[in-house]
């Protein structure tokens, strides 16, 4: 058994030697980090110490709102993960497995989805009936741990998430060598890939003046069908709910590199508020990526708590808040980045007072194209938005 393993390792090692010369500088750096992690295990074991990993904590307790930069930053707290601790032994082993899996991907110059990596690493532990990973949900947080631990981005580990979210508008870009005209994407739109770094996507020509990001595909469809982006000369994106990293990173790049303002059209409920918060300040879980994800200047144009009266909506479109919603709303109101914004405090208080929430689709009760022909254009001309 041991012999077999050794031989396998040797094969990998020689292959690695061949490939290494062809690796780019970023890949070389990532490999260096990975090897460093493995070397520390070997050296601690040799010194008869507890092998451990100090993984930065990914929770609200370890994020700081940087008032100057106006986004969430990760603090310095770390969680120590020990091999010789009953409750951590398995996740320690999984962390090492993810590390070795990523190294393999980098060396072979291939990318895979996080689900792919899960299957790559899933196997039965020798002499037991236990699997290294039972479900993908076991694997995902470990991948994020490895990302923060190494300080590497997901694409640097040659991993991508499922792609979600679409884009359409007056923008031409080059995606891995293919020229894409986002104004000629038909009704489907351009699916935003998970990796949108400059190495993969280069902006070519842009005539758009701003970006409208909507919450869901259905709303995006409405805007696309009404050719809103052509009329108002903009880029139209959606993130299918909480936008994935690809969408957020792309918005960030458009905002910073093309200098376009970002406007968000989201549901009037705590989840809509939080989507906005994530786009603007970054998420708590991925605070270490805020630097390249957050768009502190993003604006919230709707829906607003006052829209029920302002737009004369019928009572039937109201959805009652439940306990969970109310709790979440109060939580959001307490976040440091909302705490000192009077307009936002008023907005949230009003929703709580209304005791109902509104979805963007509720505007359809006025008219099918009310949202594209009246609501959004009015807000834009009035400059009526929340910041």
């Amino acid at each position, binding site marked *: 058994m041991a012999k077999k393993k050794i031989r396998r390792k040797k094969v990998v090692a020689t292959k690695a030697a061949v490939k290494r010369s062809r690796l780019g500088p970023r890949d070389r750096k990532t490999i260096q980090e990975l090897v460093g992690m493995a070397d520390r295990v070997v050296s601690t074991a040799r010194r008869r110490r*507890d*092998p451990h990993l100090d993984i930065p904590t990914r929770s609200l307790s370890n994020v700081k709102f940087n008032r100057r930069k106006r986004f969430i930053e990760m603090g310095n707290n770390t969680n120590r993960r020990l091999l010789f601790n009953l409750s951590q032994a398995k996740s320690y082993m999984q962390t*090492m497995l993810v590390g070795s899996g990523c190294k393999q991907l980098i060396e072979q110059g291939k990318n895979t989805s996080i689900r792919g990596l899960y299957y790559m690493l899933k196997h039965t532990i020798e002499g037991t009936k236990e699997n290294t990973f039972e479900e993908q949900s076991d694997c995902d947080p470990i991948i994020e741990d490895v990302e923060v631990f190494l300080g590497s981005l997901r694409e640097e580990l040659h991993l991508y998430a499922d792609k979600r979210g679409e884009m359409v508008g007056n923008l031409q870009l080059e995606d891995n060598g293919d020229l894409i005209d986002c104004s000629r994407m038909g009704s489907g739109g351009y699916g935003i890939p998970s990796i949108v770094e400059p190495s993969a996507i280069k902006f070519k020509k842009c005539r758009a003046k701003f970006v409208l990001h909507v919450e869901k595909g259905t709303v995006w469809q409405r805007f696309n069908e009404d050719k809103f982006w052509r009329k108002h000369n903009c880029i139209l994106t959606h993130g299918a709910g909480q936008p994935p990293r690809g969408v957020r990173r792309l918005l960030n790049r458009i905002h910073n590199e093309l200098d376009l303002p970002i406007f968000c059209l989201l549901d009037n409920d705590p989840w809509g508020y939080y989507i906005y918060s994530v786009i603007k300040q970054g998420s708590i879980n991925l605070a270490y990526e805020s630097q390249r994800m957050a768009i502190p200047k993003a604006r919230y144009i709707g829906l607003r708590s006052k829209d029920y009266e302002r737009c004369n909506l019928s009572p039937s479109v109201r959805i009652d808040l439940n306990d969970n919603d109310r709790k979440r709303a109060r939580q959001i109101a307490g976040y440091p980045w909302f705490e000192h914004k009077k307009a936002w405090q008023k907005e949230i208080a009003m929703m709580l007072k209304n005791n109902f929430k509104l979805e963007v689709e509720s505007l359809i009760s006025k008219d099918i194209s009310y949202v594209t022909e009246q609501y959004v254009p009015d807000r834009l001309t009035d400059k009526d938005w929340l910041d």
Partner: protein
Amino acid sequence: MAASQRDISVSEFFAKNRHLLGFDNPRKALLTTIKEAVDNSLDACEEAGLLPEIWVHVEATETNRYKVGVQDNGPGIVKRQIPLIFGKLLYGSKFHRLRMSRGQQGIGISAAGMYGVLTTGKPVKISSKISKRKPIHYYEIQIDTKKNKPEILNGRGDGVDIPAGTKGEAWMTKHGIEWIARYGEDPTDANAKEVVSGTRVTIELEAKYQRRRGSVDEYLEQTAIANPHVTIHYVDPDGGYRSYNRSTDTLPAEPKEIKPHPYGVELGRLIAMLKASEASTMSQFLTSSFSRVSPAVARKLCTAAEIKVRASTRRIGRGEADRLYQAIQQTKISAPKTDCIAPIGEELLLKGLHQVVPGEFYVASTRPPSVYRGNPFQIEVALAYGGTTVAQRVTRETLVELIQQTDLRTLRQFLIHTFDGLGSGSAENILKETELGTRKSPAKLKAKEIDQLHEAMQNVKLGEGQTMNVLRYANRVPLQFQPAACAITQSVLNANWRPYGLSQSRGSLPTGPVTLMIHMASVWVPFTSESKEAVASYPEIQKELRLAIQAVGRKLGMYLRRRVRVRQEGERRSIFLRYLGEVATAVSEINAADRSTLYNQLLVLAKKKTAEADVKLDRRGRPIEEELDLGDNVLIVDPNEVADNLTTS
């Protein structure tokens, strides 16, 4: 109308209301008959100071007819008394006294005889011998239900005397009279010790023989647990022989008769006692008719009741009696003497339970005596944890027999109802293992499928899903029916077992491989009915039950917690070992380090980390922790030993 009014004899009444005495159905009739005979035998032996040896023979004569023979090595019965004891209801020595004994009213055995005569027409046969040289008195009697009087059928209404020695033996063989003359398994062995005295009763009755729950076998097994000084030889209707040997040679202390305790006397009874008393003064009356009333206490009572100590008992009116009654309730009088109760004792409880119920942990607790309505009583609880269950011990032959006997429609029901403490969860597990359908009929099983079932029953881990097995006893007699109506079961249900390491859903028995034995010893056990199947719930009894259960529960909790801890230590190591290989492989894949070197280094580290667990595991080769002090009423058995015992027995 008036012409048809007449006396009803007790016998007639019970002949019509046989269920009151435990003869509701043929199955129970068999059990009750044996039970009454065995209980009487044990009482007789113990009163005479003889170590009891009981022979129980059950034999099928016709369909649904069984002949039951129970013999003891007791003192025997003098000739004159035999017909009365076995042929007259409510005749006995035990009713009028306050003393702990198995039987109480003197209904049992004569009622069994009456039931036999009613259902089969065959008389009750009694043989009794009082010493080595004396003859065996042999009677065939039946009860005259109208007059509640015995009717002797043989020897022209006078019985037969069979002389001792070989001549008598020959006569008995000729006339088909059964008598065990020698100890030991082989009765023909002439060198074996002779049975010099004893009584044998043979009753033929309509009955049904069934194994397991509520069966004769179960009764005898449970009797053996609570009576470690008794040896029982048992021949079942299929000719199978089994014996439960005594694990101690000391007889239980002889319980003494007592006078009633003042606390238990109600006003009406007090007045009646005053009237009947021959004592001339109040002081004399109080000290002579009650236990625990010294002249000093009597004076106290009288003062409190504003009665003169020297007042004549005849002068006490209703008002004074009431005051006296109140005074009794308010005065502190020490609890009745406890020597009227002979508890089994913690040591013997452990021995008895260990002898019959396999397990790894035993604990017993005997509460100090207490009093309900002035009757002293004492609660004892013993608990066995672990080991194999009935379902696991069953042999293939017995299983086949059980399957043939059952009239249950599905296998699942069969498993749940046949085996004690086998919950529905365990039954499902067994069936899952066998891959037989839940709804399969037991009658239709093929030989191969029975094999599968038998194997599954032994292999499936039943411990978790199985419910606690509760054995109830009153004065060393097992109570097998009406568990729900019994104060004992209620106390077990009401106890919270979760802190003691067992899982329990609301309002049901806890689950786990546990056998709980609860014994109530009292001069007068308050049964809920004449069939003596359930103990009534007096608050004092409930309290004592609760305390006793808690006492053993705490010990069980300590033991289980320690076991969990030791197991965790062991598991810890195996968990580390499990992952080390993976870690070493992954690391060596990343930085091309030598896998086996790294693995060995990690292994050394893991061993160092779990060294603590090592110490506890390796001493004597099994998990043990030395600092656990559970006290002396606890018995811990090596699990390996349990397995050994099983294979040898």
